[in-house]
């Protein structure tokens, strides 16, 4: 069958989210993420969903949280300064365990930066942008096809674990259109959040065995409290040290407990490689091109591509790096992911950062030149 089509990275995210059951979008236009809002505005009403253009970025994140509390699968999209503005409410969603997905199309920063230029400067911000220890999941696709599937997965992870999930795109992937032919493995299944058991007393932050409290939607007939203050299982604030400790360890512990269901990495020719590249997003496309071209020249180079950026796939990287002559970490920033790679590899293999910060994509040549130096 040839049902291939030309699909933009940004559009693929929208269709993936809709396939997973997203029926609410609130946002504020900002380059280079505005195309995502445009398409949601066109598609959501057809499915009985709601699109709201809000007065600003902060309100957009608030509306997404509100819609999710009311039982809808909700999403927003933003970039650079908008992502910074959303951080306080992302923290609220983390603390109150409200499922939601934030698509962040990275643009060059800090501040207004370069609106139409690509960057990977938000790697650390996605994890630590809001204050305090908190659970958050970050996923970075590298093709339009993967953007579809992974945005669908993001919605499902968020609903299942009650953790905010960030889809991290760069400007290149968001704006490019490419031939996509969906296969069976791209089908997005729909996973709904767990609700209360009818007829039993409802505790909104109950300490259940699976660590995930059931979530009653506003209007479902349950009366309870949601707050950004540290709360006990009734949802009301607490200052009892024992309760605080237990609640915070449960909320953050979800990431450890479900880590292997969340972490996804892709390997290309890693096993027999002399040199390992670790790269994500559009840079991983250059890196995979290098693996392909150097293989033709008889050189053994492998790529480990984290699809899930956070929780960081440290164990996978440690295992893949074992016995290699070098690990190369190309990034469009001054060296953010490389710190995590260093932590994972813990001095067992030499690590070489490759950083480009002129707004351009790291080319296959830049990576292969560094490899030639090392081999």
């Amino acid at each position: 069958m040839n049902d291939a089509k030309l699909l933009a990275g940004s559009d693929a995210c929208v269709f993936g989210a809709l396939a997973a059951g997203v029926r609410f979008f609130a946002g504020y236009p900002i380059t280079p993420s505005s195309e995502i809002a445009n398409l949601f505005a066109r598609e959501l009403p057809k499915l009985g969903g709601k699109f709201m253009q809000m007065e600003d970025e902060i309100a957009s994140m608030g509306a997404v949280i509100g819609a999710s509390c009311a039982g809808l699968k909700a999403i927003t999209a933003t970039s650079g300064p908008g992502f910074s503005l959303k951080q306080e409410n992302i923290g609220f969603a983390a603390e109150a365990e409200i499922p939601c997905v934030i698509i962040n199309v990275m643009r060059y920063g800090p501040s207004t930066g370069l609106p139409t230029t690509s960057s990977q400067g938000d790697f650390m911000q996605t994890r630590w942008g809001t204050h305090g220890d908190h659970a958050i999941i970050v996923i970075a696709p590298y093709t339009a096809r993967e953007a579809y599937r992974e945005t669908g997965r993001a919605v499902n992870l968020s609903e299942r674990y009650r953790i905010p999930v960030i889809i991290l795109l760069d400007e290149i992937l968001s704006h490019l259109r490419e031939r996509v032919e969906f296969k069976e493995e791209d089908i997005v299944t729909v996973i709904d959040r767990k609700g209360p058991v009818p007829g039993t007393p409802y505790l909104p932050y109950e300490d259940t065995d699976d660590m995930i409290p059931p979530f009653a939607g506003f209007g479902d007939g349950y009366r309870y409290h949601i707050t950004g203050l540290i709360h006990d299982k009734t949802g009301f604030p607490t200052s009892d040290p024992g309760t605080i400790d237990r609640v915070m360890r449960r909320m953050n512990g979800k990431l450890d407990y479900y880590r292997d269901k969340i972490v996804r990495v892709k390997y290309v020719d890693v096993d027999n490689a002399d040199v390992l590249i670790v790269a994500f997003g559009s840079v991983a496309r250059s890196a995979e091109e290098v693996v392909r071209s150097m293989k033709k020249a008889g050189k053994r180079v492998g790529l480990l591509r984290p699809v899930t950026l956070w929780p960081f796939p440290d164990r996978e990287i440690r295992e893949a790096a074992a016995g290699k002559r070098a690990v190369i970490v190309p990034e469009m920033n001054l060296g953010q992911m490389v710190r995590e790679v260093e932590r994972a590899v813990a001095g067992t293999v030499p690590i070489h950062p490759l950083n480009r910060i002129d707004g351009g994509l790291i080319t296959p040549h830049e990576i292969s030149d560094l490899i030639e130096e090392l081999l």
Partner: protein
Amino acid sequence: MAKRWEVRLIGTGGQGMVTVSIILAEAAVLEGSNVVQSQNYGPEVRGGHSTSYVIASNESILYPKIDAPNVLLIMSKIDYRPYLSTLAKDGILIINNGADPKSLPDRVYSIPIRDIAHDQVGKPITANIVSLGVLVGMTGMISEATALEAMQPHVPAKALELNKKAFALGVEAGKAALQGR
């Protein structure tokens, strides 16, 4: 598709050149090729410099950028000479004017695209579709029939015949330019 095509289009925002790159990309998909299309632009809505590109190949396309195009079409009134050195070894450069071919370097072709749209089609706005015809006529990277099929959803139904005419005139001008060498 026998080779990897890397086509870059340079225009002024509002000329419809990004649409041309999307039509080319959709046509390549229709013919079963892998394709990546994108555009670079400044913060302006109209009037700024706009560059779009298409990469089409039978191999999967990983690196999504063009380093050295084998086809470069410049619609804007800018000096083409600085772009000559960016071309691939087998690359051609097409400029939008009626300059005498003898006055141009080997790999540069001049075609009065805007004049064809204005004088022969009678609608200056169809210049982008004339340029689509030129690209197809000169490269054969996709068939004329597929290009027309891909073009159809991008033009108003009532202007379809006009755009078909613009496309055909472009194809003719492109082929004539090749033979002029």
